[in-house]
């Protein structure tokens, strides 16, 4: 059994004055304070781009020691954009196995202290260096061609696909940890500068810095925020070019299938998923069977997945699109946000009475996928 007993979030933003360690420290101390504990026996650090940008190797031990935890056990997890959820899976395994009783998971990454061309180069490393990333795919080349394929195969127009970013921005307005807290219309999405046509700037996540932390404990506590019931994952194709149907994120379908098999009764009232691009969010809704294939964009345009709409509430935080996506930290943000919802403490859009929720992480367009199911305690 693994319980979340505390969370700490730094607002995603351009934190020019703060180092990776400072951001990790702020999130961690907030998580420890919220858990009302002072000591931990393991720290799991999730980070991805910071290895290239800081640059710093063995990041977990440096972060631990810089926080005054010299002597603690530490490990770093790097699984690209899915690093955060991979770290949560590691923490759960540590407490489930009895190797640790209290684990601090902290995810951190900084994107804004570098010129954007360098960030684009580093982000293309999330894709397969032997195939797709051999070419100039930039930030969203693969996502762009998948979006065009989606429009072609399912006869969905660009305007329908612009409701997703509009919903994300609308959700983020109330979230004090979100980077982009302003509303946009679908029309604005279409008018924004192109990033990887047909994707525009408003179909992508903002380049921001962030850190998120959770405290995971193996023993039930009356004041625990949520239980991490299960975390599942799967690897996928190295490139969407290998897939018979590139519009299916098969790694997520497999991971979610495994999760469903392992959990007896699943209540999904809230979902925080990985909308690195509009099309990624849409394909994930379909992989999770929250919408029929080819129908998710239409469902979003129709008002589904919003507060009061049909289906579970998806990304009340604003998602990667508007909360932000500090690469390795994102999965930890998502798990923390779902835990806050289940505890009735999320400071933004609240999903009233939520009993269970999912956090979903996907690297690139599905080279690996992770999904966690959390449920309310008591």
């Amino acid at each position, binding site marked *: 059994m693994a319980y979340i007993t505390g969370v700490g979030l730094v607002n995603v933003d351009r934190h020019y004055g703060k180092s990776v360690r400072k951001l990790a420290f702020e999130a961690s101390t907030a998580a420890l304070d919220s858990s009302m504990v002072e000591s931990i026996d393991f720290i799991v650090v999730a980070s991805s781009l910071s290895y290239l940008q800081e640059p710093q190797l063995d990041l977990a031990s440096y972060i631990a020691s810089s926080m005054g935890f010299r002597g603690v056990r530490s490990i770093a997890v790097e699984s690209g954009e899915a690093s955060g959820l991979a770290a949560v899976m590691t923490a759960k395994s540590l407490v489930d196995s009895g190797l640790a009783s209290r684990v601090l998971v902290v995810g951190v990454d900084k994107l804004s202290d570098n*010129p*954007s*061309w*360098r960030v*684009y*180069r580093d982000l*293309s490393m999330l894709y397969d260096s*032997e*195939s*797709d990333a*051999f*070419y*100039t*795919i*930039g*930030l*969203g*080349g*693969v*996502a*762009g*061609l*998948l*979006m*065009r*394929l989606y429009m*072609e195969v399912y006869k969905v127009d660009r305007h329908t696909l612009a409701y997703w970013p509009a919903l994300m921005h609308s959700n983020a307005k109330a979230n004090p940890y979100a980077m982009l807290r302003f509303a946009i219309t679908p029309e604005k999405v279409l008018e924004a*500068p*192109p*990033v*990887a*046509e*047909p*994707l525009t700037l408003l179909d992508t996540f903002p380049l921001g810095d962030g850190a998120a932390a959770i405290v995971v404990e193996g023993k039930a506590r009356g004041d625990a925020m949520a239980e991490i019931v299960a975390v599942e994952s799967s690897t996928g*194709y*190295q*490139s*969407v*070019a*290998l897939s018979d149907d*590139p519009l299916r994120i098969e790694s997520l379908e497999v991971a979610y299938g495994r999760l469903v098999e392992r959990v007896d009764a699943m209540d999904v009232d809230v979902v925080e998923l990985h909308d690195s691009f509009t099309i990624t969010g849409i394909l994930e809704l379909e992989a999770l069977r929250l919408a029929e294939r080819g129908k998710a964009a239409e469902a979003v345009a129709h008002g589904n997945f919003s507060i009061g709409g049909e289906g579970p509430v998806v990304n009340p935080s604003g998602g990667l699109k508007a909360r932000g996506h500090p690469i390795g930290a994102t999965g930890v943000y998502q798990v923390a946000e779902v835990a806050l919802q289940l505890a009735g403490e999320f400071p933004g859009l609240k999903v009233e009475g939520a009993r269970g929720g999912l956090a979903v992480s996907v690297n690139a367009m599905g080279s690996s996928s992770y999904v966690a199911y959390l449920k309310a305690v008591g």
Partner: protein
Amino acid sequence: MHRYRLIAYKCKSCGRAHYPPANACPYCGSRDLGEIELPRVGRILSYSIVYTTPFEDKDRSPVVIGLVDLGVARLIAEIVDVKPEDVRIDDRVEAVFRRISVDGDTGLIVYGIKFRPVRTR
């Protein structure tokens, strides 16, 4: 040098081809693989016009990236010799040998396969 000649692997167990050649078949996991040469002509299944390019490629922006179907295998590669606005899904394209990247004045020049439209519109 699969990048120079469009060399793929065909799995002797399940019969499927994949590119670039991997250590095992991505479909069935078999390591019993043999080389085949891919057709040099195919069609564009989808494409994107990429503006967010790294510094080295700034002067080439925007770059067209295509998902190209060669029949027995598909791959993602750059589409060249065409105005980005003229590219269409289903366009027939052929493989050409081109420079991929240049590392400064004295560094490595990497070559590889790109695709260009078979007929100009």
